[in-house]
């Protein structure tokens, strides 16, 4: 038995799988048909409850290779059907056991499509999922006390405890991840707001040396000349709450550091440039989002995972808008009119999802080279 209670009072019942426990958070849905393991380990999902629109989950089990960080961040994972017989030569552990180990509360056998339609129509809601037969009222009470995302700094909680170097590079099915030292490559610093490993791997693949810093690292450290560029990583939550980080970003901009912003990092850049952040009704979470590349008039199928966005009007006097979401015309990417800054609201590192926006890392590498 599992039960899901929403802030609007609605209640869903289903079966439980994974960790038996209680989790609360903003309930969002993702339309990607594959890559549940990458999602579970994506720090951007911190404190959220994820509903998978695709219905058959567990099919390929899990493997350490497909982790985007060393733990999970989701509170709960809600699916139509969990299938406990992984079939893939790479699978090392079933999803059920992986979720138990990582304390992710799973719920299955509910009308996930109804859930998703409700979220689409009403917008994201807070919810609480429990695998115990607790009273609805008790859960409602607990839900009221659950911390909300807006206005909250989560990043400081989950950032790396200390700086570290990263040399994992591209993945192949035969050899797994290669390691690349990039001895002659430029060193870039990554501000870790909850960074996905594939961002780091993409940077390494593009020929850079990568050092990751806790987000609390004073900006002076990253301004050092040995760091030829700075990456503002993805991460969870409300960008507006991260005032010290926004201030650090301004400092980097002032000093003409080449910067790449991704997702939360992009929002922080937007705010640092004087822009305005808005909360989307139910966010963009999926691997099929069509984005227009303004420069080439080409369309990129991108991976997205964000609940906030920067209003294009609020930054357009300072940046060239390079990418626009074809579904709702929201801002998906820009470069600065006169500073070496590239930024993407979507996830060029993919994982899970189409990799075609990965060229952004090479563009950033070029930018870094030009300035170096």
């Amino acid at each position: 038995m599992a039960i899901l209670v929403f802030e609007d009072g609605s209640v869903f019942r289903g079966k439980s799988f994974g960790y038996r426990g209680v989790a609360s958070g903003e309930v969002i849905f993702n339309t990607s048909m594959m890559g549940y393991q990458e999602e579970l380990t994506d720090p951007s999902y911190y404190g959220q409850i994820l509903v998978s629109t695709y219905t058959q989950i567990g099919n390929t089990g899990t493997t350490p290779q497909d982790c985007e960080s060393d733990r999970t961040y989701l509170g709960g994972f809600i699916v139509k059907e969990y299938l406990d017989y992984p079939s893939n030569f790479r699978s090392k552990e079933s999803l059920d056991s992986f979720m138990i180990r990582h304390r992710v509360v799973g719920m299955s056998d509910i009308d996930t499509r109804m859930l998703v339609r409700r979220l689409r129509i009403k917008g994201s809601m807070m919810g609480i999922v429990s695998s115990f037969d607790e009273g609805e009222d008790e859960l409602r009470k607990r839900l009221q006390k659950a911390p909300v995302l807006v206005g909250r700094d989560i990043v400081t909680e989950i950032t790396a405890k200390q700086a570290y170097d990263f040399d994992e590079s591209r993945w192949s099915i035969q050899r797994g991840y290669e390691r690349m030292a990039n001895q002659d490559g430029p060193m870039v610093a990554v501000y870790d707001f909850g960074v996905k490993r594939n961002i780091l791997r993409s940077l390494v693949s593009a020929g850079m040396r990568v050092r990751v810093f806790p987000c609390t690292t004073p900006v002076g450290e990253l301004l050092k000349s040995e760091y030829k560029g700075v990456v503002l990583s993805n991460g969870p939550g409300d960008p507006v709450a991260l005032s010290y980080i926004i201030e650090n970003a301004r400092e980097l901009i002032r000093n003409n550091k080449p910067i790449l912003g991704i997702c939360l990092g992009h929002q922080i850049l937007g705010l640092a440039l004087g822009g305005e952040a808005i909360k989307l009704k139910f966010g963009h979470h999926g691997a099929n989002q069509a984005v227009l590349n303004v420069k080439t008039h080409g369309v990129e199928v991108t991976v997205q995972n964000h609940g906030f966005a920067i209003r294009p009007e609020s930054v357009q006097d300072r940046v060239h808008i390079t990418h626009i979401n074809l579904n709702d015309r929201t801002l998906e990417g820009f470069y600065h009119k006169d500073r070496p800054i590239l930024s993407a609201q979507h996830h060029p590192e993919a994982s899970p999802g189409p990799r075609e926006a990965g060229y952004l890392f090479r563009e950033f590498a070029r930018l870094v080279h030009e300035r170096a």
Partner: protein
Amino acid sequence: MPKRKDLKKIMLIGSGPIIIGQASEFDYSGTQSCKALRAEGIEGVLVNSNPATIMTDPEFADRTYIEPITPDILQKIIASERPDALLPTMGGQTALNMAVALSDSGVLKQYGVELIGARLDTIKKAEDRELFKSSMQKIGLKVPFSRYAHSKEEGIRFAKDIGFPVIIRPSFTLGGSGASIAYNREEFEDKLDYGLGASPSHEVLLEESVLGWKEFELEMMRDKNDNCIVVCSIENFDPMGVHTGDSITVAPAQTLTDKEYQNMRDAAIGIMREIGIESGGSNIQFAINPANGDMVVIEMNPRVSRSSALASKATGYPIAKVATKLAIGYTLDEITNDITKNTKASFEPSIDYVVTKIPKFTFEKFPQADNTLTTQMKSVGEAMAIGRTFKESFQKALRSLESGLYGLVPRIHPNDYRAPGTRDSLVSGLKRPSPDQLFSIGDALRMGLSVQEIHGYTMIDPWFLNNLREMVAYEDTIRSLKGYSLSSGQAVKVIKEAKKMGFADRYIAGLLGVAESALRKSRIASSIGPVYKVVDTCGAEFEAYTPYLYSTYEEENESSVSRKKRVIILGSGPNRIGQGIEFDYCCVHASFALREEGYESIMINSNPETVSTDYDTSDKLYFEPVTFEDVMSVVDHEKPQGVIVQFGGQTPLKLAKMLEAAGVQILGTSPDSIDIAEDRKRFRELLERIGLRQPASLTATSTEEAIRIGNTIGFPLILRPSYVLGGRAMEIVYDTESLVEYMEKAVNVSEDKPVLVDRFLESATEIDVDAISDGDLVVVGGIMEHIEEAGIHSGDSACSLPPFSLSKHLVDEITMQTKIIAKSLDVIGLINIQFAVKDNEVYILEVNPRASRTVPFVSKSIGVPLAKLAMKVMLGRKLKDLGFTKEVVTDYVTVKEAVLPFIKLPGVDTLLGPEMKSTGEVMGIDRDFALAFAKSQLASNTVLPSRGNVFISVKDSDKMLIVPIAKSLKELGFNIVATRGTAEVLRSSDIEVRVVNKVQEGRPHIVDLIKNGDIGMLINTTFGKKSIRDSYSIRRSAITYNIPYYTTIEGAQAAYKAIVALINGTITVTPIQSLYRHQGPGGGTEHA
């Protein structure tokens, strides 16, 4: 970049007749394409020889040529139409081959016609295996190792290098014709011979087998700005080695992690770029080694395909329509997604359900055919089902097949589990891919074999097997309810869970030993019923505006019932021999008519290949199995004013009585009238009452009774089981011995399953009539005279409209009898009657008070949309108001010719009989019979010779009849080659003949001559079992070498006339729109 302004007129080539491997999916794509061109204001010129298509309706293109699809004919059309461009990617391999031929011969250049959708070099790079292989290697992708062989010796040498098993693919054959797998040297030599023979260039590709690997397909789209998307991923349930058309397939892919899937996606995009697909869709197939993830590219189709039709239906993304728009210059981001309205075609659909397709086979019609599934496609149709889980969609697809199975039924009785030999035969059933393999898996699971073991035998992915395991295991849970009341809490819980897993009412009832109706009743009383979800391309992320629905057992119902008057049309389910595109054509017309009359049209069908299951054909589409349970669920939800069963062939007809008993209003002719026509006894009584004649007929419930009847009414007899469509298990017998054999072997005769015994009217002329009745007025649509004599199934027989030999008196008599029958059966809608004329007497063979297979042909022939009118009549309109009050007289002749599947089924005899065997049909139109027949032959890929040798071998009763034909052929300059008996007769009439050995008379014999290319045409009529057996290899090699052969005197006569016409005149082409312009009343009613 918006659409190109320079393209004002575009020519589209259809795929021609339905054959195995090329079916109604190309009507679906072609129709979408025609509609897209029209919406863009571009003049469409369409060529297709298949009259049973929606796309060849006069409203869909501006100029529609129902003409043979050959380079010569296409050149004539191009010369007269002067299109700006040719779009060859909508008509399957046929259209693509034509585009190549027209480019290579310089015709396109000569007339300044641009190839759009796919460039010539692109087509060649994708189609030529060597070029494809080197392209793949260039971009770092692997393909299976392969080499070409041109002789047996070369082949044997190469096979040693490649190792067994080896795949043999003859070059330049359609749809993988002749491809096979050899597991050892001995088998290899036989199959190599066959393959070399099947290839027109005497060339085969020998290929490393990746047997047992997992097979995947990606449906891709790319535009001229290099935007490239995956519309759908498909995973085959069956491993490599089974043609994807014969495989159960599932969307989306189930057993790939994102990393592996993205590798495949990247590879697919790389392939699209390297091959150069710049404005259209493609299907790319991959094989994955399950042990280590190694990936090889199998092939690509640079055009819309059967898989893309499936992908369109599976996702809601209209691939053909989008591909057409790309071809005329749009880019993906400029095309609106019809379903969400607010998003563009440049995204990748995300689906929140599982789609399963299961192919439909008709091996029961070809007992000699080997039902092992291999690299050559053998299925004739497919059913698709949508469910929220794999289990649900799989079980829905299984019952959609309408094979009388409502689930994964056991084939082995539990008592036999331990019997000696059971396990061995089970294991061999598991090891050999066949339509039965699935049921062996079910039995194996019931017998306790592990998934690992079954995987070892079948190589089917354990994920699928585990799903089946859970399904089969749940059967026990259901069975454990025995003894409980169906309304008990426990029963309700279990039944609800079973419904979620997709179990059919009927199957659950069977497990519990109760009637389906009882289960249904208690299920409804316990409020267990389906809800309907929308197929929306986006996993509910955006609002959907298109009511394309499927059922599932969940909470929220998204199907809102409108306030309009509404009617449900029951579709015809998966294609099969005897029930195919013709019925879909009628259903689509019914839908158009309903919309024109202000009704909401609601379609229920399970066939993904069709126009009827396109999301914008009807106001609402329920993609559901056409079974009683699933139809009733929709009816209960929609509460329509009526349900239409007349148009979908036997599938809905079989449900008519049950639906009526359940209180459903059946529109049009009453189920009781249908029953009168189908029930022999009631029908005989009717004919006696109205004084019409039928051949002597009786019903036998035992062999003894049959013999008695035989002696009373006299041989020859035509025998058939009651209630059959398409002449299943029908046979003509000439003596008691064969009668006994039939009764004892062919059918399972019993009290409630009697055999119908009719006097067979030998050498009679068979007539087909389609008519329409509004209750007051009956108008005959067309009288078709068969070219083959009675006894050959009407679906396999060529026919002419108007009749070519009937006297006016007989035509009047037939018209009158048709009207009498229609009136006496109170027909409202369509009626089809088969008559036989012998010695100027008219006999009634069969009456079908419903849409028949010939309705589209007649409609195309006379330029009147009969099915549409019939639908309106069923709504209460009168023919008078509709402007169709008298028979149409045409000043041209149309000939329908059947297209047979023998080339795909090695080892099967090609002789025609009362059992229908054809998969499709073509139509020839011209000013006289000879020319129209000639066109019908051209269109069915029969190349009539203009000189050379004609082989003649006829049965005794035909010997005198063949003399004038032989004489005339001789006069035309042909040489006659004949077997001894025939030669003697011809010589005695002073015809010079060269005698050739029959096969059993020693070499060189006739088959040697055929193989050497010395024979241009064969006339071979047979009598009796021995003669049929003796001449088998002649007919078979005629098929292999594509030599026209006629097995009846009538056919030979028509062929002679056609040859004369071809020699004397040049063939001209005419669009149907200008033919109909001269037509009488009724033509050109308004359209959708």
